[in-house]
C-alpha cells in the first residue's frame, strides 16, 4: 500500500471509524440543516433530531454486527 493510501486510510479510520453510514447521515443532516436555514425557518432543532436518528441507526448496526 502506498504512503498516500495509508495516510488516507489512517484519517478515514480516525474520523469515520467503523460505521461509514453514520458519517454519511451526519453529512446529509448538515445539508438538511443548511436547507432549512436557507429557507428562512429556524434550523437549530434539525441537528439534535438528526443525532437521535444517527445514533439509533448506528447502535442498531453495531448490535447486529
Amino acid at each position: 500500500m502506498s504512503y498516500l493510501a495509508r495516510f488516507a486510510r489512517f484519517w478515514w479510520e480516525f474520523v469515520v471509524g467503523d460505521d461509514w453510514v453514520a458519517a454519511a447521515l451526519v453529512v446529509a443532516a448538515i445539508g438538511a440543516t443548511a436547507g432549512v436555514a436557507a429557507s428562512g425557518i429556524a434550523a437549530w432543532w434539525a441537528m439534535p433530531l438528526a443525532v437521535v436518528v444517527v445514533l439509533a441507526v448506528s447502535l442498531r448496526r453495531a448490535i447486529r454486527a
Partner: protein
Amino acid sequence: MTAGVFLVLSAFLASAVEGVEALTIVLASGVARGWRSSLAGVGAALLALAVIVASLGPALTVIPIDALRLVVGGILLTFGLQWLRKAILRASGFKALHDEDAIFATELAGAERAPHEERAGLDWYGFTLSFKGVLLEGLEVAFIVITFGSTQGSIPLAAAGASAAIVLVVAVGFAVRAPLARVPENILKFTVGVMLTTFGIFWSTEGAGGNWPGSDASLFGVLAFVVLLSFACVGVLRRRRRTMLVAAGAGA
C-alpha cells in the same frame, strides 16, 4: 465564557483519557525494553505532535469562521458519535469495558518477546513502541485541541486544558509506576463522547447557517439533550441485552 469552560473541560478530559492509554504503552515499553529508549520515543513523539499543532493551528485560523465551524462541527460530530456509540455499547454490556491492566499485560508480553535490535544506541522496539503509542494517542488530543481551539478562537486555552491533563497523568503515573487502572476510564470516555457530540451539534448547526436561541448559553441545553439521549440509549440497550440473554438461556 460558557464555551470557554466547555472548551477547557473537553480538552482536559479527552487528554486525560488518551494520556492514560499512552502511559500504559510507555510503562510496558519501559519495563520490558528499558527506560532510555522508551523515553526517547516519548520525546520524539511529543516533538512531532508539537510541530503538528504549531503548523496546523495557525493555518486553520485564516479560514472564515462559518466555513470552519461547518467542517469542524461535521468532523467533530462524526468523531464524537464514534466515541459515544462505543461508550453506550460498553455501558450497556454489548462491548467489553476498557481494562488498562489487561492491556498492560498484553503490551508487556509482546515487548518481552520481541527480538533486540539496536539503532543509534537505542533499543529500536522500545523506541518505536513508545513513539507510536504516544503519537497515535496524542494525535486525538492534537485534533481536539486544534479543532476546538480554532473554532472557538482560542487554541492556547484548549492547549492549556490538554497540558494540565497530561501533566496530571504523567505525575500520577510516575508516582505509582503502574497502569492507572483505577482511573474511571470508561466513564471519562462516555463524558468525552458526550462533549464532542455536543460541540459537533452546536458548531455544525451554526456553520450550516442556523442560529441557536440564547447563543452560547444554549450549549447547556444541547449538553443536557445529549446526556439524556445517551442514558436513554443505555437503558434501552440494557433491556434489550437482558431479553437476548433470557432468550438465549431459554433456547439452550
